């Protein structure tokens, strides 16, 4: 199966393609000769420039979906294109809230399997091969489809670096979204935006994360203060997200964000495999843990065996003194 046409499900936020979308487009360029994007929302035209510069020659514009959740409609629209004979050989979808809905529904609609949680995608003998990090990233499994395409691949964020190739803006091609019936009856009544300042967790150069070792919710302020001083994004382990100390958006790991900063500073985090799979890609890891045996220390470039309540306040004071 030669790979000719590759589609990227292109999500955007605030009028610009998400970084995950640009990562997928960058990869798509090395996979097929034709790269096209599928996008929705009221402002697809304004994203065409960036989609184009990252490799998309065309963007199929599904239009403004209003209050509908994207999953069902986007899957229906892509399925209709495939059934009309206009489909791609390969579809790349990001591991995001809406991306997984689109992937699942599309898979069932066109009766094609999915390969998920990709951290890399290569082509061997003309066949796309998916690479998955399994068992907390200790092993890599490679897999491929054994039946006819289009192959649906769901890729984790930060698997590829986004790089513009300098192409012209993508041609905007409006497409009809077919009726999706009962599957398309969920409606957003209100959107809540949680205020955050400073760099974004998945884009920050430095990430300072806190875990259960902080002892209590109030102590997370220490992490926020340290993050501010280092111009870092604050992050968290799932233990303290589940405990309600910080919002889910802070979570690093298998079920949270994947981060690849220059420095990842883990404070009171044990280093469970599900946490490590989200931060092992950091260039440098610093960990503070009072337990010498904590797994996080086995991957830290600088491991401090110590009490976060002692080390972190001193670190904060020292940084303040420099400012």
């Amino acid at each position, binding site marked *: 199966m030669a790979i000719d046409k590759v589609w990227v499900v292109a999500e955007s*936020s605030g009028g610009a393609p998400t970084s995950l979308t640009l990562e997928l487009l960058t990869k798509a360029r090395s996979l097929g000769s034709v790269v096209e994007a599928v996008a929705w929302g009221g402002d697809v035209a304004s994203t065409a420039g960036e989609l184009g510069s990252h490799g998309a020659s065309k963007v199929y514009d599904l239009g403004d979906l209003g209050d509908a959740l994207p999953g069902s409609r986007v899957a229906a629209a892509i399925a209709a294109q495939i059934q009309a004979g206009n489909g791609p050989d390969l579809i790349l979808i990001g591991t995001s809230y809406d991306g997984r809905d689109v992937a699942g*529904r599309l898979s069932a609609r066109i009766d094609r399997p999915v390969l998920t949680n990709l951290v890399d995608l290569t082509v061997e003998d003309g066949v796309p091969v998916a690479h998955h990090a399994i068992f907390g990233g200790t092993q890599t499994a490679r897999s491929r489809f054994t039946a006819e395409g289009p192959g649906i691949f769901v890729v984790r964020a930060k698997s590829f670096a986004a790089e513009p190739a300098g192409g012209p803006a993508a041609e905007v091609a409006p497409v009809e979204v077919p009726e999706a019936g009962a599957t398309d009856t969920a409606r957003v009544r209100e959107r809540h935006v949680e205020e955050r300042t400073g760099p974004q967790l998945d884009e920050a150069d430095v990430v300072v994360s806190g875990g259960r070792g902080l002892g209590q919710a109030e102590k997370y302020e220490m992490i926020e203060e340290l993050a501010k001083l280092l111009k870092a994004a604050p992050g968290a382990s799932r233990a303290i997200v589940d405990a309600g100390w910080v919002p889910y958006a802070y979570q690093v790991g298998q079920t949270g964000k994947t981060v690849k900063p220059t420095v990842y500073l883990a404070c009171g985090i044990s280093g469970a495999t599900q946490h490590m799979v989200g931060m092992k890609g950091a260039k440098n890891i*610093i960990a503070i843990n009072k337990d010498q045996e904590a797994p996080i220390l086995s991957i830290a470039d600088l491991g401090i065996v110590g009490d976060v309540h002692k080390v972190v306040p001193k670190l904060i004071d020292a940084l303040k003194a420099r400012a």
Partner: protein
Amino acid sequence: MNVAVCVKQIPDPAAPGSLHPDTKNLVREGKLILDDSDSYGVEMALQLAEHAGGGEVTLVSMAPNEETSGLRTALAMGAARAILVSDETLAGSDALGTAKVLAAAIKRAEPDLVMAATESTDGYTGTTPAQVAELLGLPSVTFAKRIDVSEGSVRVERQTEAGYDEVECPLPALVTVTAGVVEPRYPSFKGIMAAKGKPVEQLKVTDLGLSPDQVGSAGARQEVTDVAAAEERKAGEIVVDEGDAHERIIAFLEQLKVL
């Protein structure tokens, strides 16, 4: 209101996992337990059914070797009954094959609401619930962190990148829950005793009107070609804090030109 809850029974996640050297399927030997991620769906279903003034909570599971240990845990929490699909032809199923089985089994329960976790602990493709919803022709709301049901519709606070959305959806519908949605109860002694007598309907693939080539490794249409150890990160310097560890951190950050 009747609720069907998908519950996956998985190898103990505390034990190190492994893949079978030939089939490259996850080794699922020994006792399987209730996936912790599904205990939230079970609890939520019990509370919603109670709130709605009655109705049954039915568990739906696909697992090898007629495994019921995990189901008994969820029955002990209070679910009324379970449907278990266990069949040798299901070995090696992919997410879509699993969804076909679950969808066919769920149909038998005629639920007003279907619940699942956003992703399982062992396979974590996170696509099965959306596949089930599409196969059943149902709307779905994934990543719920709060759920309320009233007058034929479900209202969900859905986690988003920016915060959360309030989403409304008519029933019947499928909802996937995150860990934060509710605090699961521990089964009581009474619950554990009662669970022993609760009905578990055991089904085969053909009972569901599916043909064996749609499921299992035959239906999967994907294969794991090889598995290798990932590159390991090595430990660097370990320093025991004697009151000056913060200086080491600062020196390291300076060296990296972060400071």
